[in-house]
């Protein structure tokens, strides 16, 4: 008997109708909304911004009025941190369309890259998480190799709960990597003391694009 057949025979639990299991699994999820930690009240975009820049996550954030203001915000961040005006740009059409004059942008990434600029397809307010889906326009390493990671988040893209993220992904084909990024890299492996920049970025900076048509 193959290892597969031996294990499946030993665990059992394969005999019940699929519809019954689906019903039970769905009933478990029905209990979630009543017992989530009450972390999102009001506008999810504002809740996200407060959380990501709060003490627990410790990222920094700035607001801009429109996508066209992003290069200026990137420049301000680099200047503020005494970094040269050089960034790796995620090969995403929304970023490619912007006017990057005055900044040296490139599309390859070095092992010791100083800074990258990314755009998150959406973000989760509950946990202050940025969501990335790997693909031709999102190399995974762009979020992990640089010392400074600058991420554009559009207000309209923020969802409230982790379950909303699961709902969005359930409707799409899974990418190689779905990355939920919640703050800069950190470690507490030496005496429990938190130190940033263990292997991934030491700093995470969110560039928050305000809604284009704010509600009156």
């Amino acid at each position, binding site marked *: 008997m193959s*290892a*597969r057949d*031996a*294990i*499946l025979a*030993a*665990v*059992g*639990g394969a005999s*019940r109708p699929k519809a019954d*299991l689906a019903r039970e*699994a769905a009933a*478990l*999820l029905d*209990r*979630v909304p009543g*017992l*989530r*930690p*009450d*972390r999102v009240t009001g506008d999810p975009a504002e809740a996200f911004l407060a959380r990501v820049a709060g003490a*627990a996550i410790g990222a920094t954030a700035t607001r801009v009025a429109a996508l066209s203001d992003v290069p200026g915000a990137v420049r301000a961040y680099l200047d503020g941190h005494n970094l040269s005006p050089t960034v790796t740009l995620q*090969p995403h059409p929304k970023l490619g369309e912007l006017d990057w004059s005055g900044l040296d942008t490139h599309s390859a990434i070095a*092992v*010791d890259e100083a800074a990258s600029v990314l755009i998150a397809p959406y973000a989760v307010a509950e*946990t202050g*998480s940025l969501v990335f889906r*790997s*693909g031709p326009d*999102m*190399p*995974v*390493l762009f*979020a*992990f190799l640089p010392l400074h990671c600058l991420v554009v988040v559009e207000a309209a893209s923020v969802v409230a709960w*982790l*379950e909303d993220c*699961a709902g969005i*992904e*359930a409707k799409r084909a*899974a990418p*190689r*990597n*779905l*990355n*939920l990024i*919640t703050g800069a*890299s*950190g*470690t*507490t*492996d*030496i*005496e*429990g*003391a938190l*130190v940033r920049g*263990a*292997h*991934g970025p030491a700093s995470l900076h969110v560039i928050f694009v305000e809604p284009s048509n704010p509600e009156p």
Partner: protein
Amino acid sequence: MTAAFSARVDKALADPTLKVAIDRTTGTARTKRAAAVAAWPQFEAARDLGRDIKDHVIANLGFYLAEFECNAKASGAQVHWARTAEEACATVVGICRGAGAKSVTRAKSMLGEEIGLPHALDDAGIERVETDLAEHIVQLAGDRPSHIVWPALHKTREQVGELFRRLHADPGALDSVEAMVGSARRQLRQKFMRADVGISGANFLIADTGAVCTVTNEGNAELTTTPPRVHIVTAGIEKLVPSLEHAMTLLRLLVRSATGAELTQYTTFHCGPRRPGDADGPEAFHIVLVDNGRTRMLADGLADMLRCLRCGACLNHCVVYRQIGGHAYGGVYPGPMGSVLTPVLDGLAESQDLPRACTLNGQCQEVCPVKIPLPTLLRGWRDRAWREGLEPTVSRVGIGVWRIFALRPWLYRLATRLALPMIRLFARRGWIASMPLAGGWTRHRDFPAPARRSFMDQIERTRR
């Protein structure tokens, strides 16, 4: 107590540095978890849901394993099955050899430790690079992990600094924890990019997509699984959840219980190899599903233990773990969860001391995010050790003598009436610092002097 266990415990208790190291990390972990739980009024109800999700999967494991395999294959992953640790290691080493791998990076996985994968890779002559900072420290020290979340918890910052000064290529000043982390970053940077194979574990296996979830705070998992040509996952068969949405509830519970954060910095779902057109990612993706005693646990009444998320909260809150640390347990998994699992993995005859090295104070069950009845499971092992005649002669005879007295209340009362004044002879200011036959206790702490009269005598006096 066997001599080997007793010797390990004595060694741990005699090491004042170890106690300092354990207190620093577990103290922080307890404080942060308590704050996270206090900020979540529905935590109790969420624990019930976490338990029910895992129980639902374990009751229907055959269905979910088959569903996961089918979806993982459809995503382009290759799925392997292993009954034992040996089969699992042979599969991983075989994949590495097939890929012509000279260097392998590894992101911390408790299952990898459980099946002895580090040794198997070393024996196969493949360079193994541990990328989790704590595992890197443990590897440099030629040591063993002592905690399932903080494997280098037994090392103080001074010891880590000494190690890096000796073994890192470019250690720098090493005058702070920040400088030590920076040194490790420089040391491992190129190794991430040069590895032929990256190996990770799995915190969850998502049945309806075939994806594998890893959680880290350092980002080392993604740097391990993205640059190499091949990504191998080793996962226990109990790691399944029906869907991504079910995983979210368990992530909330897992992360708060482990570190007190709301979510790990990097929570990643790996699904299949790189897609055509993808900018990076491995060309081949292998998943090794490992039994190694889990089906036996199902058959032996230990299904509750298969809910375990490996958060480490039971270790941090255990009065025994906090005194003796992880190495004294002798197995891969220490603390309360380890004392339940080690007899499964190493055999009860070898590890029967562990279920007995427990005060049954119930703290572990109180903090478990999926409500595993750990004290009940530990008592189950004690019962079984007794029934199988594994109990050492001294305690077997001792309990036999106690039984003679316990079955004859008049004799029991007479004995306590005679013993109390004798014991009190050794007391000074209400405490006993040493007494014949009590050295095992008094070597490490004083024993409170007993009351002048027994409880029964006092009751009878008040009745009169």
